[in-house]
């Protein structure tokens, strides 16, 4: 019913406009001819509108700036971000000047040189001097922008200094996991074939390898049993055979990891996996490593002026040094609830908008305390059986100490 009423309303409105136009046409004819080009009055009016628009546009800009500039990102929480913010200010200064000058000329000329039938435009076709001027002046400014910008870029993208804390940020639809390298400062090897319920990142350790092999073997056995029960030659049979093939190939790939060096097979045991929030020690260099489980995501940490795509099938990285703890930033922003956020900034599916993780930047002592309280990977994949758990831990701990020796 509402729809019908609206259609009627639109129809009536169109009719009204149509009638209005006929009146317009009639009066135009009475006034003596309907000129195709604008009348003097129209030109004058539109010329003034140009000028009015210019002031309106600048006023809008100024209002937006006054109202919203306080809500831009607060001062950079990373060292390199300070350089970026200066670069941004420098570029903004230049483009704002260009923007204002060109707009003043554009709208003022439109206003000033409004049509008049007793005047002729100046026949001015080109001027090498002028054209040279506005080719070289932008070129000089751009040269400065390029040199300044690229020196910042090369600094920022430089490799992480020795001894940086390594953290892997691993996205999937629709959450993040952060992995710390633990006491050995080495991230354990990982592979997507190893992913399972208890091992979301596919970390490869002796423990996870055995349990993944066991899981796959059991699944294959189960499928083979099921195969006996389904009718021969049917679709279901075909499907099961296909799945068995997939699992067997996966098992072969998983088993090939046994050939990895012993050291890398234990490096993952002391890794620490955390969700929902992760900690960074202030003032220390951190190198982030990114992979992705399913589609492209992008790790966006706006307060640190840091962003990097996470691409399945490859590893990307970035590094920075944080310079303000969460507490300090709460004071700076005068907001007791402030938190640094890691957001996803590459369209990744329905819940893309809600793929976040809180970043806590804390004093190094707080960080050390926090990290020791976390469960290691080896602990997290232990079977529910309490005794078995203890044994497994002992074995891996021993192996690590052996390697360290």
């Amino acid at each position, binding site marked *: 019913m509402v*729809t019908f009423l609206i259609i009627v309303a639109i129809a009536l409105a169109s009719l009204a406009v149509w009638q209005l*136009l006929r009146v317009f*046409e009639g009066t135009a004819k009475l006034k003596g001819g309907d000129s*195709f*080009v604008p009348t003097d009055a129209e*030109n004058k009016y*539109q010329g003034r509108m140009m000028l009015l628009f210019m002031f*309106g546009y600048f006023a*809008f*800009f100024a209002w937006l700036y006054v109202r*919203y*500039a306080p*809500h831009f*990102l607060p001062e950079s929480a990373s060292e390199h971000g300070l350089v970026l913010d200066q*670069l941004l200010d420098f570029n*903004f200064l230049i*483009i704002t000047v*260009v923007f204002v000058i*060109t*707009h003043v000329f554009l709208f003022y*000329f*439109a206003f000033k*040189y*409004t049509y008049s039938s007793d005047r002729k*435009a100046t*026949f*001015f*076709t*080109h001027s090498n001097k002028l*054209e040279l001027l506005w*080719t070289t002046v*932008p070129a000089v400014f*751009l040269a400065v*922008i*390029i040199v300044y*910008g*690229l020196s*910042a*870029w*090369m600094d920022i*993208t430089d490799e992480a200094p020795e001894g940086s804390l390594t953290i892997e940020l691993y996205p*999937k*639809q629709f959450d993040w996991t952060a992995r710390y390298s633990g006491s050995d400062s080495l991230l354990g090897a990982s592979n*997507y074939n190893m992913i399972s319920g208890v091992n979301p990142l596919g970390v490869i350790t002796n423990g996870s390898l055995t349990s993944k092999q066991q899981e796959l073997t059991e699944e294959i056995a189960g499928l083979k049993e099921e195969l006996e029960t389904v009718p021969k030659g049917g679709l279901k049979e075909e499907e099961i055979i296909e799945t068995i093939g*997939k699992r067997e190939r996966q098992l072969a790939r998983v088993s090939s990891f046994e050939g990895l060096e012993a050291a890398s097979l234990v490096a993952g045991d002391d890794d620490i996996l955390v969700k929902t929030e992760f900690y960074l020690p202030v003032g220390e260099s951190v190198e982030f490593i990114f992979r992705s489980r*399913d*589609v*492209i995501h*992008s790790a966006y940490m706006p307060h640190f*002026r840091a962003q990097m795509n996470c691409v*399945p*099938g490859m590893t*990307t*990285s970035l590094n920075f040094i944080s310079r303000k703890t969460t507490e300090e930033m709460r004071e700076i922003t005068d907001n007791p609830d402030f938190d640094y956020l890691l*957001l996803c*900034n590459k*369209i*990744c599916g329905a819940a*893309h*908008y809600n793929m976040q993780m809180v970043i806590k930047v804390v004093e190094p002592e707080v960080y050390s305390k926090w990290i020791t309280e976390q469960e290691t990977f080896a602990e997290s994949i232990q079977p529910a059986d309490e005794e078995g758990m203890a044994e497994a831990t002992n074995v891996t701990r021993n192996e690590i100490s052996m390697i360290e020796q």
Partner: protein
Amino acid sequence: MATAAEHNTDHHHEETFISKYIFSMDHKMISKQFLLTGMFMAVIGMIMSSLFRLQLGWQGESFWILNFFLGDKWAPDGILDPNMYLALVTIHGTIMVFFLLTGGLSGTFANLLIPLQIGARDMASGFINLLSYWFFLASSIVMIVSLFVETGPASGGWTVYPPLSALPQAMPGSGMGMTLWLVSMSLFVVSSLLGGLNYVVTVINLRTKGMTMTRLPLSVWALFITAVIGVLSFPVLFSAALLLIFDRMFGTSFYLSDIHVAGELLEQTGGSPILYEHLFWFLGHPEVYIVLLPALGITSEVIATNSRKPIFGYRAMIGSILAIAFLSFIVWGHHMFITGMNPLLGSVFTFTTLLIAIPSAVKAFNYITTLWKGNVRFTPAMLFSIGMVSTFISGGVTGIILADSALDINLHDTYFVVAHFHIVMGLSAVLAMFAGVYHWFPKMYGKMMNRKMGYAHFWVTFVCAYGVFFPQHFMGLAGVPRRYYTNSEFPLFDEFIGMNEMISVFAIVGALVQFIFIFNFFYSMFRGPKASQNPWGSNTLEWTTPVEHIHGNWPGALPTVHRWAYDYSKPGKEHDFVPQIVPLEEGELDGGAGH
């Protein structure tokens, strides 16, 4: 050519409705077909943007109109589904970039203006031209059909990056909807190539006597170079789409590797999604200029005519078109600064991208200088053209920020980017397209459009356009990511709730105002006052043809060209314009030489 001319002029026989309006091979009719199809697609794209603006302005609130358009599945109780939000954003982008501003813009004006302004009877191949339109229409129909499939249309963003777009498990829109998207785009590429080849061949071969390359109007130069860019870059999109189809259907792994999605392990290894990004943006960036150059061409024509003054720096304008076209092929990597590319490669792309600012600046300054000491007549087309110069500058300067790889780190994929490309590419091209329609409507339909409605249309559109996109820079500087269904999941962006409401109001008012244009368009087509042969006092050849369209464009012999297209207000002349067909007087120099 002469024989073709004689052949055509006497061939004005009666035609059936079908051969005249449907399967026409006449470039003027094909131009109108492109325009109407483009306008139809644009209305769909515009309604979609209004729908997602409702969600963004009043996040999570219920609107019966969402339910009316999208039904219970995609807008239960009038609340937009997040998957449908992404689908709307995706199809809005696809339609606006490809169907309106590539097919619609180039298709309309290249078809209308190239033969008429170079003095040709028709396109080099009328039949290829007809095919070009029908592939475009087929492509449009497939795109519209994809809106109605059960799992929804493609929704991985208009760039459809795999793996998201390759895996139906990753999102419902990557199912049937994505297949149809790829089919539609493949048809679209065929249409573009057929059209583009025809435009290039026509400009090179069918110029009338005296129409040297340096006497061509800038509109033809722009459309010509656009066609060259399209012919060189669209095949790459085609290959990207083809490989994506293979990955989706035949288990290849061009773009896929190491994927575990929705609890399932995929066996594809060795591919790279980054390969797709390279292929896509190798078209994608030239595509920006495929959209922008015709807009600049139209603006050059309209500004010179209505300033009653030669376009300033004609040769510099041609030079900048060529420079932009060349550079457009070596800048695509600036869309990929944060994909982990080698920083050194990133530097190269930063450098080449910033170079584009120079020819662009030359163009902007030349437009402004054309107005200086002109005799500016504010037809609706002129208003839209001045608006276009404004958006070209406003959006262009922020490009300098985004081209800087270091600054792109924090602005990439935020609303700053949305603001930048909507203003510099979207608004500029749309405003110029309106300018083109108002300016050449008398040529297309032999009628005049209503000027008062044109004025109202311009001012409301222009104000709303800036009202929508200008504030988005500020959201971007606060770090608000694009393609977010809602910002209410965390308090970081709460300050921008009010701004989002304001933007949505501007967007919806701006959308409604377009119905004034549509009304004006169709009303004038049927009831507008009859146009005169040269209503704007223009120099170019299209205004020497009869108002009533005939096959072959000119009765009798083809016109001969004696001068460039910009002899406006030339000293010593009686009128403030001298058409190109007027011979040079003794001792008179052509092309503004000596001035």
